[in-house]
């Protein structure tokens, strides 16, 4: 994967033909796995992730249990073949950091106090990585928690904005992430208009940072809409057909 001469062409189109503020084609499916308590599959273009939820279950070892709420474990993990160069088996430092960041986002909206002394496990598996795996993973994990019936204050919708050839763009693909100037993953709880995850790798002016947050917010509201549609579809399938 080498750098294209330009990441945005004369017509303002990106390497995959999108406009700067355009999301990639998104696919969401809920309940894709049988043996977990909740699951979801999410695609953002070439990025493909599955998330699954187990629990609430008894926390063990016992001394880790909390008297007033459930603990939430989270593992973000990539298959070895999800990336260009084979990823070694085991957890990389990057995967450990992202597991923390995703877990903290999920804890923010989940009513863990309803399950004292319990544990909830969330697993995010990246099947293919083409940029925005943590935001797709968080979007999927939030759907999987909903699928598992976990009480939540809101869904989390997430997307990255970035700076590419000096211009702000929405929903970076791998090429843009790699050769762009900045990558800023953002997650929000739209109902509360609050930031749930935020990172910035790269440099932005204060002006760009503010515009970037607004652009992320636009993308997030589209993703949030898709999440709610996916959940509606899932639960209407489950609902008894009217006579």
């Amino acid at each position, binding site marked *: 994967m080498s750098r294209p001469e330009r990441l945005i062409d004369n017509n303002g189109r990106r390497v995959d033909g999108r406009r700067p503020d355009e999301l990639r084609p998104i696919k969401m499916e809920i309940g894709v796995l049988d043996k977990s308590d909740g699951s979801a599959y999410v695609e953002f273009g070439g990025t493909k992730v599955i998330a*699954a939820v187990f629990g609430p279950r008894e926390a063990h070892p016992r001394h880790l249990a909390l008297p007033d709420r459930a603990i939430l474990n989270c593992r973000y993990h990539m*298959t070895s*073949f999800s990336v260009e160069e*084979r990823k070694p*088996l085991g957890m990389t430092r990057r995967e450990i950091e992202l597991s923390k960041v995703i877990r903290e986002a999920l804890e923010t909206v989940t009513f863990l106090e309803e399950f004292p002394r319990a544990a909830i496990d969330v697993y995010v598996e990246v099947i293919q*990585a*083409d940029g925005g795996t943590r935001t797709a993973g968080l979007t999927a994990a939030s759907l999987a928690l909903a699928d598992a019936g976990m009480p939540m204050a809101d869904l989390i919708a997430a997307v990255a904005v970035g700076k590419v050839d000096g211009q702000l763009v929405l929903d970076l693909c791998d090429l843009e992430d790699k050769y762009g100037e900045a990558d800023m993953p953002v997650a929000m709880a739209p109902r509360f208009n609050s930031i749930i995850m935020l990172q910035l790798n790269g440099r932005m002016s204060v002006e760009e940072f503010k515009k970037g947050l607004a652009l992320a917010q636009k993308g997030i509201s589209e993703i949030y809409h898709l999440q709610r549609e996916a959940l509606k579809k899932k639960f209407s399938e489950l609902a008894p057909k009217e006579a």
Partner: protein
Amino acid sequence: MAFTPKKDLTAKIMRDKIYSLLLQGKRIDGRRPTDLRPIKIETGLLSKAEGSALVSMGSTKILTGIKVEVGAPFPDRPDEGTFTVNAELLPLASASFEPGPPDERGIELARVVDRSLREGGVIDLKKLCLIEGEKVYVLFIDIYVLDYDGNYFDPSLISALAALATAKIPRYEIVDGKPQKTDEYFSLELNSLPFTAMVGVIGEKFLLDPQLEEEKVLDVSLVVGADEKGDITCVQKNSPGQIPIELMDSIIDAVIEKTGEIRRKFLQEVPVKLAGRT
């Protein structure tokens, strides 16, 4: 050290139920004793892997991907490419799988698939040599169990073979004595198509391809493989318990029949180049 996990408290009741059904030639999900669950094979789903296949057998789902690099051969086989099989029982797939490095079950799965591929010379490793003694193609066959509803052995081998059969491997040329990537790709020819069938024994009865509820209460289980010549390619008793020796003949017969069924399905759905055929 690992130890064999304890059985469900309700296991005894379920075992008796499954055994009673078996006596009538029936199973809890309506299958006959030697019926396999429906098999679904999807290949080429992933673009960053040189080969990939998602295989389901009932609700059990396996994703295998193949990555190819150029590396050194083993010293005692200087003119052959190499391959490695890994298997991870992802915690996503079952509450009974833990995150962390592969435990003994994952290792057993990987090694059973590895032996099935290696001992029968399924892959012609001599065709994967670039510079004798120095540079060869190195294949990583990585198996992930995504959803575990019993018997991860059979679909894992199917997915490994499907990923191999459909892999597009970048061709290297030797330029100035060094391997250099070209824009071309080639497919692997396979010398043979061994498949396995997992066998569960209860009392003097047996069944194939146990789903999870069955698997948990079997008296004993084993995995048996066979190829298109009807040769046995693999045996692995993979649980505590006694196999009555007089049961082996009918087990072998059933395995040969049913791996034949898998093979026909595979050949219908996967575009495989078999060595010696055109």
